[in-house]
């Protein structure tokens, strides 16, 4: 019986038969469909996905004319960060990193990032970031944004002024926990407006919010309110709202954005609140399960993202990297898996960008 080389979610090489791959594709799409109450992939989609996964070539790609926009998050940190920070440990300046991405790595857009890549620590050094933004804008041709994670966890004790909801919950202080989340979300929104308006005044073409909702539903609401304020202040800015996961975690449980409870929203619902806040582009995410196969993870991810692109009124640039979009969770994601996942997202999920 023919067996195909493929991967597990942790990157391990495995051999699987067509029957086993198809069974995992069916289980993966069913899992997403069941969770989010969205359509599962069609039989034709699943056959197409099998063709992509079982392709004999190590690297696969889309047909000429079907290429999509390629942009990057995390700025220069993919080079300069260490391997605990998704980087390669290659030190270089931010200008050099931006030009390298533009001129050698095929980036259609790029972004400036602070070493911590979070909104909060940028606030006290915004003047330095504005200066660097101006300098790099004088050299780069591709749209050049500022990027940061909302990362609302930094607003909670011991790093910030608000009580930590996890600690408060453990003490059964539920109302206090929820109030703390709400206060932190308001603070985050204020900081987003502060940082965003200044960096755009310094010439940034836009702002990329990476891993929205990583600290739960209040993080998501704080970000959306910040995006709304930034949109009002900077009507022409390009704003990308990228998410942290396929579902918004309910740490608060009932916090709302414009009357919509955001806890438990899936990509096809998340995109609607991002649109409402004023985003130009949405970055849906589906996290990888390391114990499942590439086939299972990719089918699940494509199912979520396809449902999202079906209803989106703005372009969707899916997050594709280590541990997201069906790609295995390992330091250097294997190129066979990376290219297969990207091709599937373009050809089956119909994304506008990667």
């Amino acid at each position, binding site marked *: 019986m023919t067996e195909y080389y493929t991967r597990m979610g*942790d990157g391990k090489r495995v051999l699987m038969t067509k029957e086993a791959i198809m069974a995992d594709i069916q289980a993966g799409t069913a899992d997403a469909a069941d969770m989010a109450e969205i359509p599962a992939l069609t039989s034709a989609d699943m056959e197409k996905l099998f063709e992509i996964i079982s392709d004999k070539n190590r690297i696969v790609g889309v047909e000429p004319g079907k290429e999509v926009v390629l942009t990057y998050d995390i700025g220069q940190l993919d080079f300069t960060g260490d391997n605990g920070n998704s980087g390669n440990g290659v030190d270089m300046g931010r200008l050099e990193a931006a030009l390298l991405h533009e001129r050698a790595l095929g980036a259609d857009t790029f972004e400036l990032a602070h070493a911590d890549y979070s909104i909060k620590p940028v606030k006290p050094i915004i003047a330095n970031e504005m200066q660097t933004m101006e300098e790099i804008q004088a050299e780069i041709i591709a749209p050049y944004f500022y990027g940061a994670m909302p990362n609302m966890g930094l607003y909670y004790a011991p790093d910030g002024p608000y009580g930590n909801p996890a600690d408060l919950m453990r003490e059964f202080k539920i109302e206090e*926990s*929820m109030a703390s989340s709400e206060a932190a979300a308001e603070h985050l929104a204020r900081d987003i407006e502060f940082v965003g308006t200044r960096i755009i005044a310094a010439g940034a073409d836009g702002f990329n919010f990476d891993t929205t909702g990583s600290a739960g539903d209040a993080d998501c609401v704080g970000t959306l309110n910040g995006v709304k304020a930034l949109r009002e202040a900077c009507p022409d800015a390009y704003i990308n709202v990228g998410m942290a996961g396929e579902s918004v*975690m*309910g740490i608060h449980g009932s916090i709302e954005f414009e009357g919509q409870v955001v806890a*438990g929203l899936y990509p096809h619902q998340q995109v609607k609140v991002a649109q409402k806040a004023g985003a130009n582009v949405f970055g849906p995410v589906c996290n990888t399960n390391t114990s499942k196969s590439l086939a299972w993870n990719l089918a699940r991810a494509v199912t979520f993202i396809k449902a999202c692109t079906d209803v989106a009124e703005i372009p969707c640039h899916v997050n594709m990297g280590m541990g997201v979009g069906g790609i295995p969770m390992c330091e250097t994601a294997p190129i066979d898996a990376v290219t297969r996942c990207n091709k599937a997202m373009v050809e089956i999920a119909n994304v506008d960008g990667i």
Partner: protein
Amino acid sequence: MAKEQILADLKKAIETWDIKLVQEATNAAINEKLPIGEIIGDGLGKGMEVVGVRFDKAEIFLPQVVAASKTMEAALKILEPLMAAGEGALKGTVVMATVEGDIHEIGKNVCCAMLRGAGFNVIDLGCDVTAQDFLDAADENEAQVLGGSALMTTTLEAQRELVEAVKETESPYKCIFGGAPCSQAWCDEIGADGYSETANEIIELVGKLIA
């Protein structure tokens, strides 16, 4: 008040995290001399089952689960004197923590709330907890089960270390695990006593191990 109505109120009180209702219904149950096992198993516990299912479906979230657990604790507090008098008791003691090297504890916190809600005594050690600390807490609290959560593949090894520590010290504790990268296959490989994929499943798993 009819027994059926009391049990329905107990269930409803947990489902709606209504402390006033749970206090009234628990007192009514005591007045009607309902057995504690029935109060917890057929009333309060049934409510917690609904909470677990709704959490799995993402209809309710962490605060609601904690609130339900808090409601359960209010009922158990009223039942405490009867339990002490030997009419019933907590179902057993579970030491819960996120394993060494890992600081992700949301899933573990939900499991703690579910177990408390189901009538278990839960010792929550927090996150980044060594195998030795698990054993010390279990010894101190006469626990039956150790529950270790891990969110990262890199910290799954700490689950194996906990199993090995239990074996090396010939401790009587059962080891159960969960977390995103954890699986039944992994638990089988390391010789664990159980695997729980969801916060709801952990109640049945611990119940079986303690029985």
